[in-house]
């Protein structure tokens, strides 16, 4: 099957998807779409070898920025979402000055501390951040019509289409960055940092660049969340969510672009739909934790390794058999 036909079929499936789901599953689909951007942006950061624990706080920076821009300054919602991403990237650049003096474990702990400082600032300053209660009554995306379809953004299907377009565009940019010389340099910074440095690569600048880009997209995901739910508070961006992001990335695998996305989709469907439908609501943390441990033990390269095995096998099966004469 030609590749473009596969893409068209995938696009059609994604457009039709919410219509085959229940209302609550449509809601989960919206949050899943937003989280796909969050985890994909996180992977870009991990390309340089650094695992930050501040990523969801940076997502919160985007959410708070966008919410405040609309509430206090009346900025048009789509513009404020974009600015939320820009502000998150700028904050990441500021954080990079102390953080990139550290590496590995120290960076991990340093990033956690930096994130907590931002969270505590949201709590400490009730004006403008709303303190512990956060901000509520955040303007939703304004409804509009394109003739054959009316976008009512209270409805999850409309917001899914809107968020889906934005997330797809962001994923495309992330993909292009990864495949560009800049992306290859990110890999080099991770795996051969001394060699890269010796070749004239400014390792710290590239780490900062990855951190800023990843944070910018995390900020956009935060803004998408804020304008859908209509409320944000510091607890919404705490370490609990960060553990989920790490779990999605680890269970999905970080060797490929789609690995963390796969982890996010599979674990979200499992946690929010399958276990709830089975009536195991109160056992979800236990089951979720067990699945994570089992996947690490028995699937150390993540879910992406299953996909790779399957696609390789299919490629091998579909390859023309060589004749003995050849």
């Amino acid at each position, binding site marked *: 099957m030609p590749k473009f036909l596969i893409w068209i079929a995938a696009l059609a499936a994604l457009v039709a998807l919410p219509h085959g789901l*229940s*209302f*609550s599953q449509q*809601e*989960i689909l919206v*949050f899943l779409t937003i989280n796909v951007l969050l985890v994909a942006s996180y992977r870009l950061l991990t390309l340089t070898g650094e695992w930050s624990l501040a990523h969801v706080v940076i997502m919160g920076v985007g959410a708070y920025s966008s919410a405040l821009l609309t*509430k206090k300054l009346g900025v048009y919602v789509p513009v404020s979402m974009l600015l939320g991403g820009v502000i998150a990237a700028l904050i990441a650049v500021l954080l990079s000055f102390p953080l990139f003096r550290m590496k590995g474990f120290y960076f991990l702990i340093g990033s956690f501390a930096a994130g907590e400082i931002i969270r*505590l600032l949201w*709590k400490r300053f*009730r*004006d403008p951040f*709303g*303190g*512990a*209660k*956060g*901000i*509520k*009554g955040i303007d*939703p995306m304004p409804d509009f019509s394109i003739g054959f379809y009316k976008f009512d953004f*209270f409805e*999850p299907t409309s917001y899914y289409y809107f968020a889906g377009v934005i997330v797809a565009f962001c994923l495309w940019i992330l993909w292009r960055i990864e495949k560009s010389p800049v992306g290859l340099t990110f890999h080099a910074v991770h795996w051969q940092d001394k060699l890269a440095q010796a070749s004239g690569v400014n390792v710290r600048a590239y780490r900062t660049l990855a951190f800023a880009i990843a944070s910018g997209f995390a900020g956009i995901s935060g803004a998408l*969340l804020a304008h*859908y*739910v*209509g*409320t944000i*508070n510091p*607890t*919404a961006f*705490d*370490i609990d969510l960060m553990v989920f992001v790490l779990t999605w990335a680890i269970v999905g695998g970080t060797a490929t672009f789609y690995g963390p996305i796969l982890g996010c989709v599979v674990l979200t469907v499992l946690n*929010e739909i399958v276990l*709830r439908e089975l009536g195991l*609501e*109160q056992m*979800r*943390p236990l089951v979720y934790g067990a699945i994570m441990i089992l996947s690490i033990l028995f699937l150390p390269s993540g879910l992406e390794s299953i996909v790779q095995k399957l696609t390789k096998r299919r490629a091998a099966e579909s390859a023309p058999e060589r004749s003995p004469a050849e």
Partner: protein
Amino acid sequence: MISKIVKSGLTRRTFLKSTAVTAMSAGLPGASLAAGNTIKIGFLAPLTGAVAAWGKPGLDGCQIWAARVNAAGGIKLGDGSYNVEFVSYDNEYDPAKARTGATKLIREDGVSFIMMLGGDTWPGVQPVAEKTGMLFSTLLPSDLSPDTNMLIAPAEVHPIYNVTGVEWLAETKPELKTAVMCAQDDALGLPSVATYLAAFEAAGIEMLDEPLLFDPATTDFAPVVTRLISKNPDIVCLDTCYSDYVHPIAEQLFQQGFKGQIISCTADFYDQMIAKTSEDFMEGFVFQFPDFDDPALNGDNINFTDPNGFYEEFNRRHPGQWGAVSWEYASIMDLWKAAAEKAGSASPDAVAAAMKEGKGKHAFGDADWWGTELFGIDNALVGDWPVVAIEKGKARIKDFRSIPAWYAKHGDLLVKHMKAYDQMWDQRS
């Protein structure tokens, strides 16, 4: 009906089913309900995570309530009797998940009413309530504002009832002159801090330090307690801490040798606290939530049906799980049932209107719909509230105190402190 059966064909399976239902109906008291005559009630609260102690026991209490009501013939509306069924959704105290849960309960499960803990989760649900016109209840009146017409707080008037504990303490132990306070820095802790500050000021008890607000992620309470008791206070106030905080704080107070008075909004699972400390240490611990085997709950003023029997059944089904919310959601259901039967309908509008007609039958006595000054809307049912103290290892009601009477005397103090903490309805962003 007959034509429908004939059309669909009377199979052996259908015949056996209908025969069994008829036989069961004849044998069960009040079970003349037509098949499918069920009203579904949504239970949208945290069932897992740090706040689950204020969700899960409430759902357990509701199941007992439903069993009792259904056995007694169900809810009698204009068009017949209905059984009650609770449909739950674990919102994990997350506003986004609460929104999903509300959508599911209304659009998929067809519930007629949704009960919530409230707090951080309510703003996520508010747009859903506005769009659908569903009636919601909260245990936290600080969720109320003029924008929340379909939100009521009919059981618990947190944190205003906390004034009754301080008032009682000041009257019965006048030698206690100084206090310190701690609370988690969140939507539950802050209005409660403001309330306790007003209550202490009204009682003439001096605060030795600013309230110590700790992060909800705190797990080590040794430094918190060290700082609290460093000024040698007569009273340590635990505000409205979650039980995950009350227990370690009490344990630290015990280990660091505190000998004074402790007052707290809740003392859920206090038997575990006694096990971690001692009966002597917990003697006189004042809080606001009684065990329902308390003889004081058998008075004529109590509207909760058979509190002793409810408590016994709860402990039989869930030993050691009785807590502040075990009875509260069930108490809301008493009010809802009475209102629905009065209106002859389970529709949210009709029930809300019937519920707010005249005085409300609050669990601890008749009460008024109140709240405009503090919440901008009269959607909180406020009356008397019990003051509870631990005596020889058992919670006992010491007195019932009137919240409106306290407010009439000291309302200005409450408003002052609420404003200082940005907790008035018009200050909440």
